[in-house]
């Protein structure tokens, strides 16, 4: 018994000193190895008699457990400290740059088209498209703009043949014609796309983008037109209030026709939409002219509705503070990086147009 206590005290004291893993394992072997001090004591159990035996055995087991626990915890402690020491040595300068990555960008016009589509999608419009090269009929005549009509002067047209029969569409309105000729009413479409006019200065580019809108059903009136555009402008500029003015105008393919202005002000050099007493023209619209409906074999006695055309580039400029229209098409990497959008920023209804 004396032996046991002595061993216990001696080894507890040893294990409590500063040791490395090797030393702890040596102590473990000294105690619990084949000829270890504790192991040897177990061998003695058989020679002890009677009641002493049980007591001794129990005592021995307790001491063994106690020492083993101590050894294990010591090992654990050393291992943790070793790892920590090792990791400490592995420390790197985490402020060094990450591996290089490339980030792409979506052009602001594409982003704006997606925004517009998303807004009109919410109120049931679907997207139609048409060719960039049009015939004279779809671009003008079918739209109630016959040859020798002065309204044609408002469109400086690029022609592809001397007879002026083939041209680059000057607006997206021919998509109305194509859609109505192909399908049956009701029609509820928008048609974004490239448009062309032979005009080039700070505020005009020979190519630009428009979105056409068309809603034809049995009872669509100017109140619906106003409501639709009011909704669109509010959603697009992501504001709660909008000042909108419908002003009579003239387009051969709509009657009555209107141009729509929105109120704005300039604050700290930036344009603020929806406030102020300045007006900015942003789109043209009206009730589709009965002649146009007749041209596409839709009965104007039964069907009526509205159409509108909006300059997409202009909207993008207003929303995102872009000053120069021509920069849209100059592909300057720095400009694209600045005004472009992350490809994951897909405008959607459920999470809103933008972050």
């Amino acid at each position, binding site marked *: 018994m004396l032996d046991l206590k002595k061993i216990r005290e001696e080894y507890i004291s040893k294990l409590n000193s500063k040791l490395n893993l090797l030393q702890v394992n040596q102590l473990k072997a000294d105690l619990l190895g084949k000829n270890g001090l504790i192991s040897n004591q177990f061998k003695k159990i058989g020679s002890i008699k009677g009641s002493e035996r049980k007591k001794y055995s129990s005592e021995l087991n307790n001491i063994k457990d106690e020492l083993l626990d101590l050894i294990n915890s010591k090992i654990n402690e050393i291992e943790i400290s070793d790892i920590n020491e090792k990791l400490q040595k592995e420390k790197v300068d985490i402020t060094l740059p990450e591996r290089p990555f490339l980030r792409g960008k979506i052009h602001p016009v594409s982003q704006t088209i997606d925004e517009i589509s998303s807004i009109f999608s919410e109120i049931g419009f679907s997207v139609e498209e048409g060719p960039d090269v049009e015939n004279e009929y779809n671009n003008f005549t079918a739209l109630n703009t016959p040859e020798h009509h002065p309204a044609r002067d408002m469109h400086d047209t690029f022609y592809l043949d001397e007879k002026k029969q083939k041209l680059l569409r000057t607006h997206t309105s021919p998509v109305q014609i194509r859609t109505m000729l192909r399908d049956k009413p009701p029609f509820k479409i928008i048609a974004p796309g490239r448009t062309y006019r032979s005009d080039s200065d700070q505020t005009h580019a020979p190519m630009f983008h428009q979105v056409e809108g068309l809603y034809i059903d049995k009872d669509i009136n100017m109140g619906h037109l106003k409501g639709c555009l009011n909704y669109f402008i509010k959603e697009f500029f992501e504001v709660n209030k909008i000042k909108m003015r419908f002003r009579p105008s003239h387009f051969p393919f709509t*009657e009555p026709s209107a141009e729509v202005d929105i109120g704005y002000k300039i604050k700290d050099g930036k344009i603020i939409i929806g406030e102020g007493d300045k007006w900015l023209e942003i789109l043209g619209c009206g009730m589709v002219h009965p002649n146009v409906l007749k041209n596409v074999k839709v009965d104007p006695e039964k069907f*009526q509705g509205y159409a509108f055309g909006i300059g997409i580039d202009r909207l993008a400029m207003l929303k995102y503070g872009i000053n120069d229209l021509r920069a849209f098409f*100059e592909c300057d990497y720095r400009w694209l990086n600045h005004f472009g959008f992350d490809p994951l920023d897909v405008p959607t209804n459920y999470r809103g147009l933008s972050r």
Partner: protein
Amino acid sequence: MKITFNWLKDHLKTNLKEKNLLDQLTNIGLEVENVESASTDNEFFKVAKIIKTEKHPNADRLQVCDVDVGEKEIKKVVCGALNAKKGLLTIYAPPGAIIPKTKAKLVIAKIRDVVSYGMLCSESELNLSDESNGIIELSKSKYENSVGKSYFKKSSTNYIDLSITPNRPDCLGVRGIARDLVASGFGKLKNIKEKKIKSKIKQTLSVKINKEKGQACSVFGSCLITNVKNTESPKWLKDKLISVGQKPISAIVDITNYVMLDINRPLHAYDADKIEKGIVVRNSRFGEEFTALDNKNYKLENGMCVISDNKGVLGLGGIIGGTRSSTEIDTKNILLESAYFEPSSIRKTSKKLNLDTDAKFRFERGIDPLSIEDGLNKAALLIAEICGGEISKIDIQKIENFKTKKIKFDTNLFQKVSGLKISNKKMFKILDNLGFKFKKEKKYLELTVPSWRPDISKPIDIVEELARINGYDQIKLIEPRKERYKPTLNKLQKLFHFLQRSVATKGYFEVITWSFTDPNYNNFFRENKKEIKIVNPLSSEIGVLRNSIFSNLIYYIRKNLNRDIKDVSLFEIGPIFSGSNPGEQETVLGGLRSGKIARTSWIENERKVDIFDVKKDIIQTLIEAGYEKSKIYIDDITPNYYHPGKSGRIFLNKEKDKIAGYFGEIHPNIIKKIDIKTEALVGFEIFVDNLKKPQKLLKDRKSVYQVSDFQKSERDFAFIIDKNFKSQRLIEIISSVNPNLINNINIFDVYQGDNVPSDKKSIAINVSIQSLDKPLKDQDLEKVNKLIIDTVEKQTGAKIRS
């Protein structure tokens, strides 16, 4: 169309302010484009007196004048006018003034080393007349005491520039604008009692309109005014014209201009003595010539409406007069013309001759055919009043009578279209004020359209008039309906948007370039496609429609590289064209990458971009878009703008039905010719319209979920194989050995060089073998192994490397 409030008040009685006027004009569709105060600019111009002149030291024709402008300091002004002399009273413009004629702003300038503070003005420079010979000489008696005072009276009225839409010729006259305003409740129309010519003298010059096919002139009214003395216009008339930016010329010209601006009735005054034996209005004959008032000679084609006499063409009816019969300051006898010309004919002729005049602008929009006599009365009486002379009776030649238009208008249509209800009383009042006559029938109104409204012919036009005058702001907006007839996007559109964003996620910047391009660039990428020329391009550098997506992309890659941006990746998705008919176009996504990957990185090895970068981009994009990788098939037949050895053609399946895309290095010759300075230039094209649209929705495209938890084994093989053997085929062969067990094949090394014959290469492949339904035993694996080696050796002539 420029007007002033004062001029409007000739026709309009109102107490409202100019601010209200501007708003109301815009509200009824006569958009105010610009309001300019005439006064601010003009206050600069001062009455001045030349104190002294001396010859310019460095220029024979110039003088240096000391000018008293009413200030302490005497100004030194360099002047080129011969009439500048001591004591002359003239008009001085200081630095800062804007010269009305040239719109140039004066600055203090050195003229041949002598500093000139401002300028002494000629009448022409101030738009007072055409007199440009010398500076203005003001009358001593009148201006002697005005030195230093502003020459122009401070004008209290602004000029208002209106944008009149092409359907409203009536509003190209002040009276028409006033009428619209009155209809909308802005003031009252003044009832002007038009004086009529009371004459017993016959119009002795014969006028005849030829009745021929396509005769554009249906009415020709005229009167003779004899023994006039053409002169400078009186001040009221000059001021009126100047107030709307017109330049006074002489009384006769000014009066015709005034009548035109006031009631939109263009007139033409001939020197009657220069007309040989009367006037014939007829169609021109091919080759006829005349010199117009713009001093240009015009060669006419067949069928243009000309006013002629015995000697030939005098002028183009409704467009421009000729110099041969023009009035001058010493003209004695005048023939005044007031006619009606067919709008489309005016337009055709002026387009052909590329002629644009004020008269043409008005006639092509449609002049009131019933204003012929009004115009003659008004102008002739004014001429007689100012220039004296005797007026003849009015002579009217006509080959067609004007027919008034009648419209049956169902008043319910207004509410049906506008969504707004207004009372009949209000409706009648608006129509009455606009000049409509109406008769109430049981179910409709029978409306007679005023002769000055060529734009109105249908009930819908009446709806617009009512809506416009009543105010668009009265129409209440209706919340949008959400009902939908079709999905927002069709499959092709969805694919377009998916590809666009998918490519952008790979580090490309999206660009939008013009659909036209430089023919030289286009030719590099055109192959055998037809060049599509624009007949009237803005410049020859953008003179053709693009046949390829690359021409503009490469142009802008180069531009960016020249900006010293080294590693540029751009893409565009848009149309390319194969012909000049509608629909001869397809949508292509093209991407270009230049320069290096990981340039100047501390951690990664920098390297040039290569074709396997763009191959990754295009393949990954196609896979993301839903096309199966295992089916994609690649060969090496590519267009000539790619490097012939480093480019590939992609199909979505082995049957090669339609080309899905290309990738490769841009041909070095092109890079050299375009002079692009970059380490590498690689690119790809996806032919969006060629991609098969998925028939099923995404939800139905997912196949049954099937994975194996049995042990997977991997085996490596190295084959010595013919140098030109395509690895794609090797993978295909291995996969076909046992598609059920072999589920992944990777090439992990390709080697040519030592220990491999020069016509061979070594390809090392890692194959994963796994069964879906049982654990594989060693002998199963060995069997597969052996089969792979045997099959490859047999089918390709390759040898396994030991």
